[in-house]
């Protein structure tokens, strides 16, 4: 039995959780419940700092959006042909961010990699909230956002439908499906934990959890159906996640613009998505570990595994990135080649090189075990990787629009203005606000699965002994 105290968490971890082990098998189940439930009651002060900072950032975004809404998109300094600016770039970024949740919860679940268990819940929450953030950008970038429902295929007497040929409608469908499925998956996997919350909560919170836990009592029939359904959902989610980012890639690959019309875009986007998602998981891992005192669950070996996974995906991304350049370079499409040269030498060249450096060189830090286990380094590196991935999306949108088929309408010096930057910053505020709220209201670590993990590992070690 371990008695953790606020003051000496790290000390305790060092003493009681062996470095090589993902988790201490001896940890008592009651302790798991206690630790996780406590995180929902009494986080560190840092929680409130982050939450208020997010709220402030979000307010900035709201202000900018209101300004843009009232004046028109010209307020965001968009122009012909820079019609999308940061909005669509950041949209892709957030969509990409959502993929790691699926990777950790669905793919690793199917593969029975049990080290995912303490961290998949927040990764899945990240999926849901980054999808919601991405959805905001779909609205933000519209010229007439008040008519956004025209994209929805609702029956009407005029026989007017959205254009099902448009990749944007595929997007809307795919993201809608993905968001729905992610919420279902997140909620579904949380039901046993919600029952724990229900059993421990008082007052209105009890009612809340009572409602959400839907009467879960942990009976064998419930568990059996749960197991099958959860596995089925995981199986659905994997192809869905791949399809979502391929469809986002199709927005570009299906178009005619040189620099977008590239066959390898869908896998490239998916790899980029997993990459930025994994980097974000590292960031959030470090933050949550500290803020909610999850040192006993979000252990260094798990971080280590996540880092190794990130590195592997970084290399996949690097390969696909190089393939993209190579096919533009080697192919006989002069226009695409010119667009590529423009990216490497034109107005946005510093950002292009920065993106390649951050995306392909910086991940080599993850090769070193000592650095992998150094939290401040990992924090910086994971943020840098995501800066690189955001730049990748910026590089997909802005230089390509600046250098299309038509030389007369090329742009030489287009830069986003404060409205766009404010809205992008606001999106980060919105995301972390939602995420922080979630971690406060719902258990950020899956209690029942950590119990399973501990139990199975304990049984396995007993069998070995």
């Amino acid at each position: 039995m371990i008695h953790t105290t606020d003051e000496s968490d790290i000390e305790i971890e060092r003493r009681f959780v062996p470095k090589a082990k993902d988790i201490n098998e001896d940890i008592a189940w009651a302790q798991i419940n206690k630790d996780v439930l406590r995180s929902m009651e009494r986080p560190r002060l840092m929680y409130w700092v982050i939450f208020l900072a997010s709220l402030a950032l979000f307010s900035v975004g709201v202000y900018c959006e209101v300004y843009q809404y009232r004046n028109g998109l010209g307020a965001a300094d968009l122009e012909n042909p820079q019609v999308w600016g940061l909005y669509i770039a950041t949209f892709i970024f957030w969509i990409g961010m959502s993929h790691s949740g699926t990777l950790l919860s669905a793919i690793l679940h199917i593969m029975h990699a049990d080290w995912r268990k303490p961290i998949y819940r927040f990764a899945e929450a990240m999926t849901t909230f980054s999808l919601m953030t991405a959805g905001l950008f779909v609205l933000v970038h519209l010229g007439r956002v008040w008519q956004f429902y025209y994209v929805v295929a609702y029956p009407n007497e005029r026989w007017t439908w959205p254009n099902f040929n448009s990749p944007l409608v595929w997007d809307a469908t795919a993201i809608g499906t993905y968001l729905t499925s992610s919420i279902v998956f997140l909620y579904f996997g949380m039901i046993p934990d919600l029952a724990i919350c229900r059993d421990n909560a008082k007052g209105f919170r009890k009612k809340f959890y009572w409602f959400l836990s839907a009467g879960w009592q942990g009976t064998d029939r419930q568990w059996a159906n749960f197991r099958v359904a959860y596995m089925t959902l995981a199986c659905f989610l994997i192809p869905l996640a791949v399809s979502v980012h391929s469809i986002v890639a199709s927005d570009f690959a299906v178009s005619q613009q040189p620099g977008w019309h590239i066959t390898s875009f869908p896998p490239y986007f998916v790899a980029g998505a997993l990459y930025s998602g994994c980097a974000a998981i590292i960031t959030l891992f470090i933050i949550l570990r500290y803020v909610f005192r999850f040192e006993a669950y979000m252990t260094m070996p798990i971080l280590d595994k996540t880092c190794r996974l990130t590195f592997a995906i970084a290399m996949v991304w690097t390969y696909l990135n190089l393939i993209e350049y190579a096919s533009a370079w080697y192919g006989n499409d002069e226009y695409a080649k010119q667009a590529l040269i423009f990216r490497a030498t034109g107005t946005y060249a510093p950002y292009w090189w920065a993106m390649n450096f951050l995306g392909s060189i910086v991940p080599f830090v993850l090769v070193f075990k000592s650095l992998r286990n150094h939290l401040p380094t990992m924090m910086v590196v994971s943020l840098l990787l995501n800066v690189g991935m955001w730049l990748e999306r910026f590089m997909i949108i802005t230089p390509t629009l600046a250098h299309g088929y038509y030389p007369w309408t090329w742009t030489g010096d287009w830069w986003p203005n404060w409205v766009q930057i404010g809205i992008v910053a606001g999106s980060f505020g919105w995301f972390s606000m939602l995420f922080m709220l979630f971690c406060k209201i719902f258990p950020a670590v899956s209690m029942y699965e950590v119990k399973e993990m501990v139990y199975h590992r304990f049984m396995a070690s007993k069998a070995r002994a």
Partner: protein
Amino acid sequence: MGKVHTLALFNNFEEAVRAIQELKGAHLPGFRIDDVVIKSPIDHPELSEMLGKRPVYVQLFTLAGAVLGGSVGFTLIASAQANFLLQIRGGRPVVPIPPDMVLTYELFILFGVLMTMLGCFIAWKLPGNRSTLYNTSISVDKIGILVRADPLVIPKINEIFARHQPLQIMGEHGR
């Protein structure tokens, strides 16, 4: 004559296993293994196996949802396209296959997911099926065995339970 419930809480799986074995071997009148329910904090397939095969039908819902989503989705989309006033776009056919495939695929998944969840809730008979015999320690680390039996048999069952160091035995009040 109505049956009543009794619930015993055990500290660990081994004790619960032994209790069930003894229940099975006791040949109590009117006792059926289907009336035994295990309540546990984690999924424990080995324990459940002792209660015999309890089939799961969630997959059927999934299949129905996926097939329905795909086929109805495609039909609705294609007929919407065929009836849209402003049909001709970009030289593509009015009902183009690749975009419709993409959308069909998404709807296939969407309805698969929704039906899976629906099927699971139906299988659980939730949220209506809430047994009053429950202890919050089940959600911590205890194993509960719930037996539904003739009121006359209950004392015998409780007796069997008592032989395996139960933490607590709970009965339905007011009966």
